[in-house]
C-alpha cells in the first residue's frame, strides 16, 4: 500500500512538472438533483472567470487555469465526497469552486478539503453552521450566511406589522439553518410561529404539509425552499386549496419561472434575495451577455466571484498553489487597494504584478467578514404586476 502511495505520489509529481503550465480548478456543483436547473449557469459563470484569466495574458508566467467539473448532486454527501476525492487525487486540483448546497459543502470540506489542504470557495452554501465548521482557514464563501438573512426576513415582517406566520422549509441543512435563524429572530421581536413544517424536495404531493399548515393558521406562509422544487410545490398547493394568499420567500425562492408559472396568485407576495447593484453588477451583466450566459440566474454572480478570487489570490501569492489561495484570498477580497470589477481581472493581475494591492469588488460587492464569508446585502422585493419590484436594499 505504502509503495503504491509512493508510486502514485511520484507519478503525480512527474505529471505535475510535465504540465506545470496547466493548473486545474475543481468546479463542484449539483449538475443532477434538486437545483440542476441553476447549476449550468453557475458553472458557466465560474468558468467564464477562468477563461478571462487565461485570456488576460497577465496571469502568472505561462500558467493557465482549467476547470474540472464534478457532480455534487446537492443532496448526496457520499457522492459529492467521492467526486471531490477524485478531483483532488486523480485530477490534482489546487482549489475548488463549490460546493453548492450547504449539506454537501460541509461534507466535502471535512472529508476532502481539510485532509488534503485544498481551499474551497462556495458561491451558494449559506447555512449558518458553516461559519463555525472546522476548516483550517480553507473555507470561504461569496454568499452570505443565512444567520443574516434570518434577521432581514424578520425585520421585513416587523415593518409590515405581521406578527403571526406559518413556516415551511426545505428539509436540508440550508432550509433548517435558515428557518432556525428566522424563527429565533422573529420570536425575539415578539412574533408567533404557528407551525414550522419541513417539506421534502421533488416529492409527488404536498397536500399533507399544506393541510397541517392551514390548520395551524397564520397571516402569511413563510416559504424557505427552492423555487423550482418543493418550495414551488408548497405555494402551488397553498394557492389551490386557498390555505394562504400571501407568501414571504427566502433567497432560494427567487426565480422568474416562479412568477411566470404561478401568475396572479403571487401578487403581493414578497421576500428577500442576496443582491448587488451598482457598477459591479452592471459589468457582470455586460460580460455575461457578451459570452451568451444567463447571468441573471441565481448565484451566477457569486460563482464568477468565487473563481475570480481564487485566481487573484494565486496572483497575489505569486504561485498557482493551494497555499497561495488560502493565504491571500482575504487580502485580495477586501480593501485597501484598487477596486476591481468583473471583466477587469487582467488589470488586477498587472497591479499585483507591479507590487500593488487590489480590492476585488466583483459582481456582488465582495466584502469577506469573520471566517471568510460575504457580508451580504439583500434586496427586499414585492411581486407587483407579475414582476419583482424592489422595495429597498438592506
Amino acid at each position, binding site marked *: 500500500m505504502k509503495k503504491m502511495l509512493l508510486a502514485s505520489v511520484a507519478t503525480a509529481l512527474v505529471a505535475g512538472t510535465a504540465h506545470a503550465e496547466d493548473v486545474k480548478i475543481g468546479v463542484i456543483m449539483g449538475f443532477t438533483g434538486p437545483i440542476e*436547473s441553476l447549476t449550468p449557469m453557475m458553472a458557466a459563470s465560474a468558468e467564464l472567470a477562468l477563461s478571462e484569466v487565461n485570456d488576460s495574458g497577465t496571469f502568472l508566467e505561462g500558467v493557465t487555469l482549467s476547470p474540472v467539473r464534478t457532480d455534487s448532486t446537492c443532496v448526496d454527501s457520499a457522492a459529492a465526497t467521492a467526486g471531490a476525492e477524485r478531483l483532488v487525487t486523480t485530477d490534482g486540483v489546487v482549489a475548488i469552486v463549490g460546493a453548492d448546497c450547504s449539506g454537501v459543502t460541509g461534507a466535502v470540506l471535512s472529508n476532502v478539503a481539510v485532509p488534503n489542504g485544498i481551499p474551497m470557495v462556495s458561491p451558494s452554501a449559506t447555512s449558518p453552521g458553516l461559519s463555525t465548521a472546522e476548516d483550517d482557514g480553507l473555507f470561504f464563501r461569496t454568499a452570505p450566511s443565512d444567520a443574516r438573512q434570518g434577521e432581514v426576513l424578520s425585520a421585513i415582517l416587523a415593518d409590515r406589522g405581521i406578527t403571526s406566520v406559518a413556516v415551511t422549509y426545505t*428539509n436540508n441543512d440550508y432550509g433548517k439553518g435558515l428557518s432556525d435563524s428566522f424563527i429565533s429572530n422573529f420570536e425575539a421581536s415578539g412574533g408567533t410561529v404557528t407551525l414550522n413544517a419541513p417539506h421534502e424536495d421533488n*416529492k*409527488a404531493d404536498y*397536500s399533507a404539509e399544506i*393541510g*397541517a399548515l392551514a*390548520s395551524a393558521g397564520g397571516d402569511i406562509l413563510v416559504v424557505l425552499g427552492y423555487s423550482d422544487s418543493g418550495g414551488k410545490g408548497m405555494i402551488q398547493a397553498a394557492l389551490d386549496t*386557498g390555505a394562504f394568499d400571501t407568501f414571504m420567500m427566502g433567497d432560494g425562492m427567487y426565480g422568474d419561472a416562479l412568477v411566470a408559472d404561478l401568475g396572479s396568485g403571487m401578487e403581493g407576495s414578497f421576500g428577500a434575495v442576496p443582491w448587488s447593484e451598482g457598477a459591479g453588477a452592471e459589468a457582470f451583466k455586460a460580460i455575461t451577455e457578451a459570452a451568451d450566459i444567463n447571468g441573471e440566474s441565481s448565484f451566477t454572480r457569486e460563482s464568477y466571484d468565487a473563481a475570480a478570487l481564487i485566481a487573484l489570490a494565486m496572483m497575489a501569492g505569486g504561485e498557482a498553489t493551494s497555499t497561495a489561495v488560502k493565504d491571500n484570498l482575504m487580502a485580495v477580497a477586501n480593501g485597501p487597494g484598487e477596486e476591481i470589477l468583473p471583466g477587469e481581472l487582467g488589470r488586477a493581475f498587472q497591479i499585483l504584478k507591479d507590487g500593488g494591492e487590489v480590492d476585488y469588488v466583483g459582481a456582488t460587492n465582495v466584502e469577506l467578514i469573520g471566517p471568510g464569508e460575504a457580508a451580504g446585502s439583500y434586496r427586499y422585493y414585492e411581486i407587483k404586476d407579475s414582476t419583482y419590484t424592489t422595495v429597498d436594499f438592506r
Partner: protein
Amino acid sequence: MIEFLNGLVALSNFVLIPAVAYGSQLALGALGVTLIYGILRFSNFAHGDTMAFGTMCTILVTWGLQGMGVSLGPLPTALLAIPFGIAGCAALILLTDRMIYRFYRRQRVKPVILVIVSMGVMFIYNGVTRFIIGTGDQNFADGERFLIGVRDFRDMTGLDEGLGVRTTQGITVVTALIVVAALFWFLNRTRTGKSMRAYSDNEDLALLSGIDPERVVTVTWLIVAALATIAGVLYGLDKSFKPFTYFQLLLPIFAAAIVGGLGSPLGAIAGGFVIAFSEVGLTYAWKKVLGYWLPQSLAPDGLVQLMSTDYKFAVSFVILLIVLLFRPTGLFRGKSA
C-alpha cells in the same frame, strides 16, 4: 349545522379531494408496475422514467397544438396530445424490449437480473428525457384551472371555509375510472387479455396451448406505455412536469403496487389509495376541523396532529412493512412480493 358543514368542507378541501386525486395518479402508475410484474415477472424500475418520457412526448405535441391554435376550451390541450405521447412512448419501449429485454428473456435469466437491467434502462431513459426537454420545470396545463375556486365556493355557499376542485383533479379521477374499466374489460373479456392472463399464470402451459409469447409481451408493453403516459400526463397537469420528480414518484408507486399485491390490478388501485390517504390523512392537523365540530369549550388549543408531516413517508413504509409481515402477497393476493 353550519359549523359542521364548515368542518366537513375544510376536511374535504385539505384531505379528501387531494388524496383522491393523488391516489388515482398513484393507482395508474402502480397498474403499469403490477402488469409488468404479473406478466413479464420483474419489477420495472424504469417505470417512473417511462412516465416521464411519455409525458415529454405529450408536452412536445401539446406545444405544437397550442402553436397551431388548437384548444379544448376549458379542458387542457394535453388531452388531445395523449395519443401521440402514447405512440412515442410505445415506440421507445418496444425498441428497448427488442434491443435489451428480449435478449435476457431468451436467456431465461432470473427476475433479479431483469430488475438490474431495468435500472440500467431507467438511467438511459432518464438521460434521454433530460437531453431532449432539459432538466427544468415545464408547465403545460392550459384551460380552466378550477372547476370550483376556493373564493367562488365561499361566495356561493356563504360558508367560512372554501373548497377548491381543480379541473385536473376532476379529469384525473374520471380518466382513472375509464382507464381502469377498459383495462379490466380487456383482461377479462377479450381473447388477447385472456391469453395474457394465461401467460401470467403459467408460462409453459400457455406456450403448450399455442399462445405466442412475443405477442403477449408486445401487447403488455403497449398497455404499459399507455398507462405510463396517461398517469404521467395527469400528474404533470395537476402538479408540473420535472424529470427529477418523476424519478422520485417511483417510490410511492412501488409502495402502492406492493401493498395491493404485486401482479394484482385490483390491488394496485387499492394500494394507490391506501398510500395516498395514509400520507395525507394520518399527518393531518385536526385543529381546524375539530374547532368547528366540537363545542367552544372543548375546542383544541394545540394542533391535534397525530404525527408531524415529516413522518408521512414513514407512514407509507410502515404500512408496507405491516402488509409484508402479515400478508406477504399484499392485500389482494398478488404473486409473492
